[in-house]
Structures are given as C-alpha cells and as structure tokens.
C-alpha cells in the first residue's frame, strides 16, 4: 500500500479523523505542506487553518484547526490539533485570570452561602437520626 498514507487528526479533547489518505495538505508554520506517502520524517508547528485530506477513493475532507503540531513519518502523518486559539497574549491573559481567581477563591469568605446550606442539611439529617433514636428507645420500652 504505497499509494496511501495513514492520517490521524487528534485534539486533546477528541479524535477527529483517522484513516488512510492519498495526500494531506496542512497549513505549516512556514508554508503549506502537501504530504504524500513516503514523505520524509518531519516535525513542525501548524498555523490556524484548514487541513485537507484527499481520500484514496477520491473525494476530500476538510477540517479546521486552530493551530497545533504536526508529525510526519513515511507512512503516518499525525496532526496534533489545538482545541483553542493559542497565542502568547491570550495565554498570558488566561494565566492572569487564573491567578485572580485564586486570590478571590481564597479571600472570599462571603462564599459562606454554601457552608450555611450544608450546615442546614446536616442539622436536618441529625434531627432525623435523633428522632429515629427516640423512636427506637420507645419501641424497646
């Protein structure tokens, strides 16, 4: 089977495509790549864009990816797609948000709502247990 190449497109959240292809066209960071069977082994980053898979029996499939990484071996091509737009600034903003959230989560003592709720539930359960105990004692007498 020299005329096809196995193609896997996966993201951290799901397997997107897996099967053989006659050729795969991907948006490489330094230019689009057309990968035919028996391509030289290669690793590169991908830009956001379209991955085009030409199926061996004709026809083609398109997948949009928001960047990622690409691995090529002579008979296997693997697209490790990102699930989200990644850019230095965006990641930075996300990191900042996580830090803020940490401060809020730790400082925020007014989030006692849930504690109060839990305490109320606990009190109710305790009351029920106590009632049962009382009835059991009555039974024995």
């Amino acid at each position: 089977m020299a005329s096809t190449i196995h193609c896997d497109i996966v993201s951290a959240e799901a397997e997107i495509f897996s099967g053989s292809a006659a050729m795969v066209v991907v948006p490489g960071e330094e230019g689009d790549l057309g990968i035919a069977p028996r391509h030289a082994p290669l690793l590169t980053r991908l830009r956001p864009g379209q991955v085009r898979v030409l199926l061996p029996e004709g026809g083609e499939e398109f997948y949009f990816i928001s960047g990622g990484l690409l691995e090529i071996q002579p008979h296997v091509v693997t697209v490790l797609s990102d699930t989200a737009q990644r850019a230095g600034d965006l990641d930075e903003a996300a990191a900042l948000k996580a830090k803020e959230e940490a401060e809020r989560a730790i400082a925020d003592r007014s989030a006692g709502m849930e504690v109060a709720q839990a305490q109320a539930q606990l009190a109710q359960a305790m009351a029920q247990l106590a009632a049962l105990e009382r009835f059991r004692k009555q039974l024995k007498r």
Partner: protein
Amino acid sequence: MSGSKEIVGKIKSVQNTRKVTSALEMVSASKIRKAQELMQASRPYARMMRQVIGHLAHANLENPHPFTEARDEVKRVGYIVIATDRGLCGGLNNNMFRQLLGEFRRWQEQDVEVTTVIVGRKAAQFFRRLKVDVSASTQDLGDQPRLEDLIGSIKVVLDDFRAHRLDRLHLCYNRFINTMSQSVSIEQLLPLPPSEEEELKQYWDYLYEPSPEALLDDFLTRYIESVIYQATLENLASEHAARMVAMKSASDNASNLIDDLRLVYNKARQAAITQEISEIVGGAAAVS
C-alpha cells in the same frame, strides 16, 4: 395517639429525601458514561504526544530542556490539586486532601515551601482554611471540561517552573478505576521522569521546522496540558462514580429509616385501637 401524626410527618420527609437521593444517583449513573467517553476520546492525543516526545528525547539535543532536567536542590514544590466542584460525593475529596496534607507536612519538615494550583470549588473551599500558598485557581469546569479553561492555570505553574521559582511539580487527582473504586493519585509531573523506552534500532531523525529546541518546548507544554486535562476527566468520572455510590447508600438508608418509622407508626396505631376497645368493653361491663 398524639405521636402518630408526628411519625407520619417524619415518614413523608424521609420519603422526600429518598426521592432526591435516588434522583441524584440516577443522574450520576448516566453522567459516568459520558465522562468515560470523554476520557476515551482524549487518549489518542496523549498517546501520540508521548510517542513523539520519546523520539525527540532521542534526537540528541545539545541543551536538555528545563522540563526534563532533574534539579539538585529542591526549595519549592508545586501541587496541582484537582478536586470536584460539587459535594455529596462521599469521601472522595477528603481522602485526597488528607493524603495531600501528609505530603505537605513531609515537605515542611524538610524546609521546602509548598505552593498549589487548585482546580474545582471544593479545593478552593479546603485551601481557604489552610495557610498554603495558592498561585492559580480554576473553578466551575462543569460536565464537559475544556482544555481552554485549564490553560491559564497551567501556564502559571509552567512559567514558575521555567523561572526556577518551582523545582518540582506534582499532580494530584482521583484516578478512576471502575465505578466502585477510585484511588488518590499523586504523581510527579516535572521534571519529567526519564522514560524507559528501548533504544531506537536504526537511527533516523526528523526534519525540524523551526529548530528542535523550540518544537520540543511546544510539545512538552502541550503534553503536560494533555496530562492535566486527562487527570481532570478522570477526576470527573471518579466524582460521578463516588456520588452514585454515596447516593445509593443514602437511598438505602432512607428506605430502612422509612421501614422502621412505619413499624413504629403501626404499633402506635394498634396500641391506640386496643386501648379504645378495652375502654369500650370496660365501660359496657360497668353499665351492665
């Protein structure tokens, strides 16, 4: 009898409680399956990543990447703690926190600072009471966690690690074994433990676009993200499983309670009837 009305009220209230717990049980049972599917779906990515990284590690890089280099001196360790957002799941979170506290104490005895990154509202509630440094937090992931939501927190720790503010990073979550059992897992994430893969038989190398160093950094970052994401999914599945079991036993307990109460009620009612009859009979005897 005056007590009988109270007992009826009690039975009603326990019945309502049982309705809630059995509903929660069924909801969790269906969510486990979904969580497991998510776990399954994210596996190929991690597997492929591992393969490529294994290969990259063999590609004789001139400078080892900071993530793979073991550090001689450990001054500060980080923990990524993945807990649930909601409670009512048995001892799932508390078991984990107890083990974590043991770890923290061990580090503190060695004069090593501990800092944490927390995922899940229950973790935030727990660490609020502790004097442990929390550097980032993510909450409310819901039933379909997305990697996007975790990126921020992960970046904080990875940056700390790169800047030598952290010398070691651990990941802590509940591993999903099956519906009945989950186990706390605390594993070292960074520096990456050296993998024991067999040497490649014939040497060949990739073409790199751009340099191998830059690519390795990208691969490692994404690999770590995927490991943490996978852990989040496992924890989610564990949460639902633990909740299902907890709610099942709560429903069973409620059923027992109802049976007991009903027995008490019937006895009380019977006693009241007997008393009434004997009073009537006594009254009739006195008249005649």
